[in-house]
Each structure stands twice: as C-alpha cells, then as structure tokens.
C-alpha cells in the first residue's frame, strides 16, 4: 500500500510542478482583460458508454464511446452532435483496488458554430494513460484517477495544423450507496466528483486550466455487470486563446457501464486476489 500511495503522491507532485512550469513560461499573446470574463454557460448532453471487457487474468479492454451533444441557437437543450468519442485502452489489474491503462483516443469533433464556414468535421488524436486507485471508506468507495493525455488537435479551419498539448487530469470521486450498506447489485448510489484538467504545450500560454468539472451523479447497479448512471456537471475553464476568458458549461451526462467476461474459467474471482 505504501508504494501505491507514494506513486500517487509523486504523480500529484509532478502534476503541480508541471503546472507551475507552465505558469512560469507564461507569455502574453492576446491582450488579457483587466478582469476575468466568464462566458455564458453552454448546455451539453453526453451519452457515454463504458465497456470493461476482461481479456485475461490481469488484462481488460477498456472501450468507451461517448456521444456529446451541444446546444446551439437552433437546437436548444439537447443540442447537436459535438463530438463522437472513441477511447480504447488495455488495462492492467494490479490489484482489486488499483489498475492502470494505456491506449488511444480518436475523437471526431463536429463544428457546432452555426456561422462557421469552416470544415464540419475534424479528427483529434490522443495517447492516454491512466492510474486509478480506489479506497473503501465506511460503506462508500472513493477513487483517485490520474489521467495523462498527449493530444493532437486541429481547428476546423481548412488546412489548419495539428497542435500538440499534454493534458494533466486528476479526478476525485466517491460512490456512496443509498439503499444498501455496500455497493452491490440493486443498489442506488450517489457519486460526487471533481476533476481538474490542466494542460501544457507550446500553444498554451496563459490558459493552463483547461477545465474544472464538478459533477453529481445518481447511479444504479442493475447487476454486477451492468450499471446505469445520470448526472449533472458544471464545468469552467480558461479559453486557450485568452487566459482571461473563462468558458462555462452545464452538462447532463448519461452513463452505461458494462463489464462482460466471456472467459471460460470456472472461478473468475481469485485471479485478481494478489495483495489484499
């Protein structure tokens, strides 16, 4: 356990030092406003599926597909498709409470700006790795997730170049069972979560804080292999081009979590009993 936590602490440390470095190199490009400006929040709807498919004793295939909608003038509330998001990784189960993943993301970004004459669809590429730690706390579970992404994006403008950025993400989440003494099948749970997404890269001058997401989700564990959840997220973060301007958003999120195990092994559990 000690090793686990020291890894965790050093990662946090790297994260913050890195951010400090970013701030130190800050160089003004755009004229910063005298006071920070907050844009009007946009509303978005995300439909996310999370698959976690066991492919071996200690490995799983992490397969996530998200559909993200964003409101426009013409399509309020639900909005129109903004991003289709395919995130895949091979996960390694270190223990029941600790796992790591490494994989890639291809995200299809749709231009939601109704006035734009640019391209409608552009791809975005990422390499990501993630370190997740879980801790039981009374009847609840709390989770720490560090996710590091290496991201190549381009704007909708014709012939625009890819820009490279790193994203540094830390998420704290709890899952608190509501109608049971622990997380098990047929349990309703509430999950408060906070994620801070920092970014760095040549293009990132005065806007290291890409996003701060505060979410509350209500979930239901239908079976040990299938969970549904829905929640509301408030997010805010600096505009890449001007650090003085903050974007805001309200997002309704709907999740489906599934974790099939097609392996023909008699006892699927003991394989992951290692150090607990």
């Amino acid at each position, binding site marked *: 356990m000690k090793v686990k936590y020291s890894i965790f602490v050093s990662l946090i440390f790297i994260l913050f030092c890195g951010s400090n470095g970013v701030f130190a190199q800050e160089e003004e490009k755009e004229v910063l406003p005298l006071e920070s400006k907050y844009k009007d929040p946009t509303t978005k709807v995300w439909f996310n599926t*999370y698959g976690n498919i066991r492919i071996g004793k200690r490995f799983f295939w992490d397969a996530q597909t998200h559909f993200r909608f964003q409101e426009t003038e013409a399509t309020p509330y639900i909005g129109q498709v903004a991003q289709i998001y395919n995130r895949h990784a091979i996960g390694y189960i270190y223990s*029941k409470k600790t*796992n790591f993943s490494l994989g890639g993301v291809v995200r299809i970004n749709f231009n939601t700006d109704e006035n734009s004459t640019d391209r409608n669809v552009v791809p975005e590429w990422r390499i990501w790795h993630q370190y997740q730690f879980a801790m039981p706390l009374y009847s609840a579970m709390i989770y720490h997730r560090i996710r590091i992404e290496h991201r190549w994006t381009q704007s909708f403008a014709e012939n625009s170049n890819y820009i490279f950025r790193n994203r540094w993400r830390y998420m704290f989440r709890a899952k608190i069972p509501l109608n049971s003494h622990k*997380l098990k*099948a047929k349990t309703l749970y509430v999950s408060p979560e906070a994620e801070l997404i920092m970014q760095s890269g040549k293009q990132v001058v005065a806007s290291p804080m890409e996003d701060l997401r505060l979410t509350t989700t209500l979930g239901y*564990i239908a079976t*040990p292999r299938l969970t549904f959840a829905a929640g509301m997220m408030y997010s805010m973060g600096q505009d890449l081009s001007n650090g003085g301007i903050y974007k805001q958003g309200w997002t309704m999120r709907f999740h489906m*979590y599934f*974790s099939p195990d097609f392996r023909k092994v008699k006892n699927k*559990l003991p394989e992951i009993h290692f150090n607990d």
Partner: protein
Amino acid sequence: MFQFDKNFLLFIVGMMIALQLPFQASAQQNQRYTGHLTVGPYAGRADYQYIISDQDTIYDGAFQLQRSSLEALLDKEDSSFLFQGGFVKGIPDGDWKFQFGEFKSDSQTKVIDFEYRVRITGVQEQGNGSLKNGKPHGLWNYTVNQIKDSEIEKTLFKSEVTFENGVPQRNFQMENQKVILVGRFLRNGLAHDEWSSYDVEAIENTESWFFEEGLLRKIQVIENGKILDIPVFATSSDDYEVINLDENYIQIVRTALSNSKTSFQLKDGLPDLLLENEGFYKKIDSILNRLGTADFKSQFKVQVPYFALDSLETKAINLIVEDYKNAFSNAKSLLQNSQLNILKRSDADALFYYNSLERLSESFLEPLEPFVSLSESRLLQYINRSEYINQLWFNEKPSKEIIVPLDSTGRNRSFVLPNAQEFDFDGNTLASMQERVRYAKQSVLFIQGALSQQLTSAERAQALVTLEEQLIRQNETLVQKIKSVQDSLSIPFQNGLSKIQKLADISLSTYASTKNADEKLTYGKQLTSCFEDLLKLVDATANIPEQQEEISQLYQDAIWNPFMATVMDEEVKKRITTAYHKILIPYFIQELNGNLTCDNATKLLAQMNNTYNQLKALREADTKKLERKLRKEENPLEIMKLFQEQLTDKGK
C-alpha cells in the same frame, strides 16, 4: 520404515536356501524342535524330535509339550499341562504321561537351597501308562488329586486298568468320592464275573453286577444286611450284540430294569464312575489324535440282547416319533401362549381347552418321552419292545375322554375328539401306540383350531390398544411441532401447516368411527405411517424459507466489478433458481393448501426433499441445456422432471 535393497534381499533368499539344504539332506535323520506349539486347546512350549517325510513333519522320538506360568499363578491362578512321551513315525508309542493342573497360590515364596518355592492349592489330574501302536498297553493309571499347600489332600478319582493292544484285560479298579469299583475283563475285553462296587460312605453296602461273558445277568444289592437280586438280562434271547460300556449301555440297562416290573431303580453311583473314567480317556484320546494316529479308548465291552427291527416296525416307530414331536411342539406353544394364559382367566372355554391340553400332555405325551428318546439314540433294537410298550402306560391307560374339573364345586367337563371312534386304543402294541399318539396330535390340532378364533380376536384387541396409543402420541407430537414452528413462518406456510393438522384430525375421526375391527386395524396401521409422513412434512415445510435462503446464497458467484473496484455477488443459473423460487415453492404451498391426503402427503414430501437436494446438486452441474429448456417451462411437474433428468443424465 525399513528399506531393503535388492542385494540384501538376494542375500536373505540365499541364506534361506542354504539353511534349507541340511534339512533336505538329512531328511531321514531325526530333527529336534523347541518352541511354541498349539495342540487343540493346548498351547505351550514344545520340545520334540521329528522327521521330514514328503515335506510333512512327522513326530518321531521324544515328545514334550507343557505350559505353566508362575506369573499367572502368583497373579490369580494358572492352568498348567504337561504331555510327555514318544512317537514312532507319527504313532504314539512307549511311556506317556499326561498332567493337567488348575492351581492357585498363596503368593508366599520361600527360598530353599537354590530354588524359589511357591505353595500351590488346586486340582491335578494325571494319567500315565504305556502305549503300543497308539493303543494303551499295560497298566494305565488315571488319578485326580486335590492339592492343598503343595500336598495331596485327597484323591478325587483314581482308576487302574490293564490293557493289551488296546483291549482291557484282567482286573481293574476305579474309585471316586462316592463309589469304589473292582471288576475284571476277559481277554477279549468283555466284562466278566462279579463287578463289585462299595459305597465309600458305608462300606457294607454293595452293589454287584454279575456278568457272563459281557452279559449282565443280575444286579445284587446288599443294603443294611439285606440281599436283593435283580435279574437284568436273565432270560435267554435269540440274538446278542457286543457293544461298548458307555452311556447308551446304561440307558439300555435302565430300560431293561423298568421292563422287569421291579421297583428297583439303578443308582447313579456306579454308572457315573464308569462314565467319569470314560471322560478322562476321551480327553487323552483327543490329544493323541491331534498329534498322530492313536486309539485311546477304554473299550470296555459288554453284550446285550438284540431285537432286530423289521421295516414295518421301523415305519411305525418313525410315525410315532413324528406325531409325538408335532403334538408336543403344538401343545407346548399353546400352553406357553401369553394371550391364552390371560384369556383363560376370563373365558371358560379357553380355560377348559387349556386344562384339556395339560391333561393330554400328561397322559398321552409325557409317557412317550423315553420311547422317543430311545428311538433318537437308536437303542430300540436292544430293547424288548413288547415288554417295554406294555409298561409305558403302566400307571394309567390313556382314555379318549379327557375329564377336566370345571371349578372347585366338582363339576367336570370332558374333552373327546369328535371322531374319537375312529381310533383304536386296544392292546399294547406299536399299532395302538401309534393310534394314541395320532389321537393326541389331532386333539392338540382341534384345540388349537377352537382357540385360534378367540386368540386372534384377543390379539387384535391388544393390537388396537397399542395402535391407538401410538396414534395419539404421534398426533400430540404433530400438534407440538406445528405450534413450535408456526410463528416464525409467513401466512401461506402457516396455512399449509394448519392443513396438515386438519388432515391429521380428520383421519383420527375416520379411524374412531370405523366399527369393523379388521378395517380399523388396517386403517390404523396406514395412519401411523401417514402420521410419520405428516410429521416429516411439517419439518419440510418449516424448513422451506431457510432452504430458499440457502439456495439463494448457493447460487451466487463472487465477481469483481471494475467500475466500482468491488467484489460483488452475482446470481448465477437464474433460470434454475427462478424456477425454484417462483414456480416450485409456490406449487408446494398450493399443494399443501389444496386437497392434502395421506397418499399425496408422501408424494409431496418426496417432491420437497428431492427438489431441495436437486437444487444443491445442480449448482455445480453443467446446466446449459437445462437452463435453455427451463426458459419457457412453467409447469412445476415438468420442471421437477427436467431437474431429475439433468441429474440422472449426468449420472450416466
């Protein structure tokens, strides 16, 4: 623990062969053995010489087998023995000594010179003499002494007989605590002349047997100065046979005496002494015969008249014995029948028949007993049968009419077999004897028939009482049981249990209202087994909630949920558990609350128990096919069939 390597084993085998060689080489030379040996009931230390012939060990030369234990003697008591003598090629020969001792000690030891000495108290038997070709030859002594503090206190038995090649010769004498007997034999072993016996207590009283070449002519008894001559085989007979002087001979003599209309009865003293001696000789004979070939019998010979049995007589005798045994065993079982013994107190008829049976046994069967016993010992050919039959019913000739006193007022009632005139009791012949026995047999059968009705109804009444007690006990247990489990159960189960109680109540009232005793008995017996089932059904029903919980727990698989990082229980084989929880259990409850009878209670009980056991068994079985079949199945009976098939298929 010990591990021999190959070389060592080869060495051992080699050694064994090597050791065997001298034995083979000197096969005809005497070998000596010292060590343990068991001969019949005697186990002890042996020291003997032998030869090997055709791989058999044959005693040849000196022989000794003995046992004595100082430890046992000091502790409690010791049985010792010593057999000492010799063999010539497996046949006992030369001087022999046999000792048997039963000793106790006072546990006081003394050292005298260079020996420890212990005083012993007990009995020592010793027989010694010479053998030739396995047969006694020369003088044989057999003495039984009572020892007290290592000294002879008194002689309990003593015999001295001279043999020649196994045949007793010349004079002999023997004595025990009661009688002293002297007599002599001819060279062929036949008893001859006067055999005189003296009463040890009163030496002037004698009993002498006068033999003439083995034939006992008369017995002369002198008692208190009075001389009494009793002829035995005095009259000459057509035919004689030489037999051994043994128990059978004594029996023949007794019968001959009873025929001769004297009041004299043979006393036990002399015969007992002869038989005692015979017993000691047999003991030695059995030892010698276990060791080799020997014929060690006293071989005292006598002659008796012989009356050959022709085939008609043999047939008649066999019939008599057969009928006697039949009548005797039937009469005995009736007289000992406990029901009859109770019934005769209250029922005049029963008492009459009981008493008739007693009289019948006394006057017809008891007098025949010695005849049957002679026949069994095959001695009838040595008995003058016409004389014998004559005196069998010496006291009272049996009558066809058996008069039984009814009460103390002197009133009588008589028993006569309805077809009595068919029997001819006239004369004292085997034929009339046969008729009498036949009459007795048929009378017993008649009485048995007359009593059977009364006996069965009495037995039935007793059976009903026992049955009712059992039913009441069972019902009480049922009520208690239901009471004790009912509160912890849900309403449908409670109703089911009430139904069980109701069935028990209804059955009991049906039983009570049944008038016919036979039907009542049959129904009552069915009820006891039904009540047993109902009791089990209550248990089975009360156990269902617990079993359901157990099954639910059993059909869980722990799996790891990656999103929650938590181990969760997952229900497996849901179609099976659903069929159990949602179809079978409700079906059982419905059956309980439906038309419950004794017949279907058994069936339902079996279904409940089977289903529970099947569910436990199916957890580990490969049930993919079964689960597919269960998808659409809603009929509980079909489901149970499918479960059964799955488990028996697997068994194949």
